[in-house]
């Protein structure tokens, strides 16, 4: 598998780069900002496993992120747990939450899952606001531990950790996409009845995707309290996570693992720049405006847009034409079966 080797090389290179940057770059803000970008790579990639491949939209990504964050907080307060334990626990709990929401709603097709995710976000936030142990609505300050050996600061360490998580999440999403699992999920998105009749255990597959997607969102949120040195519900459950988690894959392109990565790097970077240069309130507006723009003008995201442009310029040269190329869209079946041949 040449593609597989190339991906592995790129993944290793990405991790080495992150470690090297943590040693070389002087400006501490670089790590503060890059951490956020990487965190959104994980969130967007996680969202896309269910939302992009299988077509079930999660509006409550913020809840899964915050459940991860508050799992970490609870563990820090209770037993002063090490980061790795926080990550594992966040993975498990957020995964269970994803599985639970799925088990309640994924038997039904359509929007019921999406509606439930909105409800989950409200329920989780209310629960946390009323949970004194983790700080309730007033929040909780958390002391960053001493920076581990080889690292100048704890933020640099968290930056490398998040880079590692991002690479693992993307590798997982890529494996799912190119394997039989991804084909099954895309079959579900295209036609769930037909997928069932082709032998795809649709419910099982949807549940697995919901659990994994939720679990990865939780992992994205787990280092958040240590990164901020502070946690409070409004920022942990921020609408920004829910909006960005779905805007980034849609803007990048949901059909491939590359889409969420491109969307997240692009959008999160723009957000960081806008936060610094203009205002921190405006950055959500940027996401919203871009999302609307893409949904209207390029519903298949940047990936679809570039493919369409490439095809158009390629058409001028190549003589091979396939039906549907002109519009860039696949014509749906136009003819309904007729009863013409009836005796």
């Amino acid at each position: 598998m040449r593609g597989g080797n190339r991906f592995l090389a790129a993944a290793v290179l990405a991790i080495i780069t992150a470690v090297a940057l943590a040693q070389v770059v002087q400006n501490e803000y670089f790590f503060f900002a890059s951490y956020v970008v990487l965190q959104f790579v994980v969130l967007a990639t996680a969202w896309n496993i269910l939302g992009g491949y299988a077509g079930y939209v999660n509006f409550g990504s913020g809840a899964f992120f915050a459940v991860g964050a508050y799992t970490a907080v609870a563990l820090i307060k209770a037993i002063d747990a090490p980061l790795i334990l926080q990550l594992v626990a966040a993975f498990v709990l957020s995964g269970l939450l994803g599985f639970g929401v799925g088990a309640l709603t994924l038997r039904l097709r359509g929007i019921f899952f999406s509606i439930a995710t909105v409800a989950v976000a409200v329920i989780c936030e209310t629960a946390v606001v009323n949970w004194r142990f983790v700080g309730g609505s007033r929040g909780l300050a958390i002391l960053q531990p001493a920076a581990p050996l080889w690292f100048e600061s704890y933020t640099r360490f968290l930056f490398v950790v998040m880079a590692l998580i991002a690479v693992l999440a993307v590798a997982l999403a890529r494996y799912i996409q190119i394997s039989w699992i991804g084909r099954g999920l895309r079959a579900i998105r295209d036609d769930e009845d037909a997928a069932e009749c082709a032998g795809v255990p649709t419910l099982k597959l949807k549940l697995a995707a919901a659990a994994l997607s939720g679990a990865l969102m939780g992992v994205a949120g787990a280092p958040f309290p240590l990164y901020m040195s502070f946690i409070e519900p409004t920022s942990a459950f921020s609408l920004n996570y829910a909006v960005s988690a779905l805007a980034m894959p849609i803007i990048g392109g949901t059909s491939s693992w590359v889409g969420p990565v491109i969307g997240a790097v692009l959008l999160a970077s723009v957000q960081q720049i806008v936060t610094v240069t203009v205002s921190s309130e405006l950055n959500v507006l940027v996401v919203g405006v871009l999302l609307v723009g893409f949904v209207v003008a390029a519903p298949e995201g940047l990936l679809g847009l570039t493919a369409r442009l490439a095809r158009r310029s390629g058409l001028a040269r190549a003589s091979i034409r396939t039906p549907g190329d002109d519009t860039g869209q696949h014509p749906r079946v136009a003819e309904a079966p007729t009863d013409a041949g009836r005796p």
Partner: protein
Amino acid sequence: MTASVLAVRGVCKRFGGFAALSGVSLQVRPTERLGIIGPNGSGKTTLINCISGSARADAGSIDFNGVDITRLPAHRRAHLGMARSFQIPRPFFSLSAAENVLVPIEYVRHRGSLHGARDRREAMALLEQMGLADKADLPAGALPQVDLRKLELARAMAANPTLLLLDEVMAGLSSAEVDEVLDIVLTLNQQGVSIIMIEHIMRAIMRFSQRVVCLDAGQIVAEGTPAEVAEHPEVRRIYLGA
């Protein structure tokens, strides 16, 4: 009684106050070709849906190769060796033709084994058999109607079924295309697959069927050889109003 591939006993299906099927019973023997005819709304597609698992029967039972499948979800029935096509082709539009065929190969034929290269070879062989080899990499959404019909057949056959349910695979096709698809279907039958086919095109059903069942208002009103059913007074009344 010889062992039958499929035994439907007293199946009923209601949609609100409308009885789509009321007490339908039929049997399919190994390698048999059974044709189902009947006017629109007589319950043909509902019957196929109940057999394939796309809908659940309200009453009655369905045995498939000796297993009671009345309550099994559709994918379990597929794993047991049942495959179907849809009245309006329902390919996975965003997947390529080859991937459409790969889905049942990966989920039924070689479930749980990981041999990407072999799976792809077998998918290509099936597309070849249907005359779609040169379109393997096109998205299914870009295929014309006759190719979609063939793709439905290829996808159904990819599951290695012992029973194939065909719901108007020839609707909307030209006369030459009808013969082309019919030849494919008959070849599949010679490979040992039992087939139930719903069809409005009389010429096709006459050439295809060993036995024909006529449904009307959710009940079987006639059964026999194609010639017998065509002469049956009830069938003549339904179709000719005489």
